[in-house]
């Protein structure tokens, strides 16, 4: 019996299949929109499903730092939209405060803020996309990612190499009137579709903010951006977002995302 050749060939074929199934399918020339879709599907900040324990570290130009600790729980509803509940643990004067956001497809997002000193949940405007989230350099628009979902134009520019990484270079022009940005420039890693850097511009083409990725982590088969820095270029203020603990598999019940739950620990 001479089965060696066919068996070896079979082995190679199986190995190739296994290898192929373990590697994300990649088009040779994905369009800008396809790349953005992959970026959003990756949900690298863990804001659309799961649970993260994280910190915002705010720094001013003198180097003074302030830290906001929080835990965020989220789940997808009406994909790609999501619900998220953020509970702050630091600084002490903000500890116990809760923030609930329910993204809506055809309307402004519902947002509620619970402040323990008032013992009241209050609805806050869903139209405040351009304003800062709790004093950080991240705006509500930066966190809701709508400007990447609802676009007027997505253009794939010539690929670039950023540090040691081959990157797709994408320009996005948001469609929404309430977008704080006239256009966004993204540098997306070709191998895992993580946006290594993004720069947002105003209508005069002045760069307003820059988001730069400093650390990524693959856990439960998913890539997360575990440390990223958002800089507001006009005032040299920056905020580092650090994801300390990630539970990507957390299944959070839909009924947790209600104002009633904001009051609980």
């Amino acid at each position, binding site marked *: 019996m001479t089965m060696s050749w066919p*068996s070896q060939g079979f082995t190679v074929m199986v190995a190739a299949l296994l290898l192929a199934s373990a590697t994300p399918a990649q088009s040779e020339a994905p369009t800008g929109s396809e790349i953005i879709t992959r970026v959003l599907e990756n949900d690298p900040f863990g804001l659309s499903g799961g649970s993260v*324990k994280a910190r915002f570290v705010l720094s001013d130009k003198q180097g003074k730092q302030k830290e906001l600790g929080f835990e965020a729980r989220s789940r997808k509803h009406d994909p790609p939209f999501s619900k998220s509940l953020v509970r702050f643990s630091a600084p002490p004067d903000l500890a116990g405060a809760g923030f609930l956001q329910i993204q809506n497809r055809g309307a402004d997002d519902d947002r509620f803020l619970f402040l323990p000193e008032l013992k009241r949940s209050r609805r806050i405007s869903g139209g405040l996309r351009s304003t800062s989230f709790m004093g950080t350099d991240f705006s509500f628009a930066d966190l809701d990612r709508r400007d990447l979902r609802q676009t007027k134009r997505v253009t794939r520019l010539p690929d670039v190499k*950023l540090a040691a990484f081959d990157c797709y270079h994408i320009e996005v022009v948001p469609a929404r009137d309430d977008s704080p940005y006239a256009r966004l420039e993204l540098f997306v890693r070709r191998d895992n579709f993580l946006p290594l850097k993004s720069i947002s511009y105003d209508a005069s083409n002045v*760069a307003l903010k820059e988001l730069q990725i400093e650390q990524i982590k693959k856990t439960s088969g998913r890539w997360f951006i575990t440390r990223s820095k958002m800089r507001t270029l006009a005032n040299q203020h920056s905020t580092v977002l*650090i994801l300390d*603990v990630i539970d990507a598999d957390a299944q959070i*019940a839909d009924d947790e995302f209600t104002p009633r739950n904001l009051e609980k620990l």
Partner: protein
Amino acid sequence: MRGTVGAFLQLAFGLVSAAASASSPDPDVVEDIDLDAAKGATAPPGPAATPTPTPTPVAPLAAELARLDAGGFARLAAEYWPEESPPDPGRTDSLYKLQLFLRGRYARGKHFELALSGQLNQSWAHDAHGFRGSFEALLRDAYVGLYSSALDLRVGQQRLAWGNTEFLSPNDVLNARDWRDPFVGPTELRFLPTPMARVDAECGAWSAQLAVSPVFVPDRYDVYGTNWAAVQPAAGPAINQLAAQTVGMFDRSVFDPAQRLFQQTRLPSADFGQPSFGARLGWSGNRLELHLYYHLGYAGPKVALGPVPGTLDVSYVRRHHVGLDWSALLGPFAWRLDAAYQSREEFFRDDFLTHESRVLKLAGAIEYQTGDTAKVLLIEAYYQHLFDPYPGTLLFWRSTSVGVGVLARWPLFAGLRAELRAPLGIRPRNGVARGELVWQQGNWSVSLGGLLIAGENRSFGWYYANNDQLYTALRTDF
């Protein structure tokens, strides 16, 4: 044959490896990325990067069974009231306070929570007789929460805030208020948590809440001898002399308990036989929210002449309260409305007895929202109408009273922020304005502020007109 066996083993190993990799999670992979340091990186616009904080050890996620959250604040305050002319023996000219507020919550899973909080106050008040020290320990929240996906039950002493306006708050009727420091102290200490059982339920856009208080807790206030006491120089010499003689019968070491005894108030029975009951029904839509309220509680104190000449009968009387609040969002503005009708409420007359009337209260507010809790701009208008007008003069209110309230809080620079809180009456004309500068560094803050009060005859601003004051406070949160 050896090759065949080798190939078979290779295949088996490959399949086992593939199966193993499919059934067990991939090992975590962490990559640090330094785009600025690498050659050939796109030069980022703007200034150099600030130092990156290093990760610190953190507690695990909330999915675990038990969670404990504890904190609070310590506050040292000094308050000063400029001397009146002529000096008033029943007033404080300076006050030094040390306050410690502690809170803790323990939760187990998603279904159990225990909340405890309390405060320790030590104060030294200086008046015409010298310094008077006072110590007070208050238990605030003390409740157990049992939660399910359909219902939440909380039993124990708790604060339950109804309504959504800042100044008149017509629907915030479930908890007693602490009137001994109504303007300067921390906001969270102005209401007293009350024993109650509370049930919350939600179904889609609808929510319902029931609250039962088995015992009545009256407002805390001093009768005489402090600057926010009920009896002030404006009450007239006869009442002041009587109050001074009565309080003077007690030694200064029992000044605080004497205040409660001096109130001589008949309270509703505390044997669970005269409970209060409240219900709230809510509806929440996109950008819109509505709540309806009903509360069967108590109005008062009702002050009437007693059966024995020269005595007063002070009591609380049953009343019904119905109300609604509505809030809507339009662009960056939040619009809020609170409305309430009460079947009875007691209003002080200028002879210090009370007048009883049915009353309508309305408050409407517009808040400019920034998304940052450190930035608040809010203006509120309020209206109060008595359906049973008093033919004489009331203290503080008129048959129809109208006013506005302003709340502004804004950061200035280098950790400094300014705050103005001012309820201003249009009818009757009077106002209280509290301006404050707060300098915050980390968990420490220093505040410096002043309170100005003035008003037309028989208004609140007139009655407490001697209470213009300066204050400073050092606070740390932990």
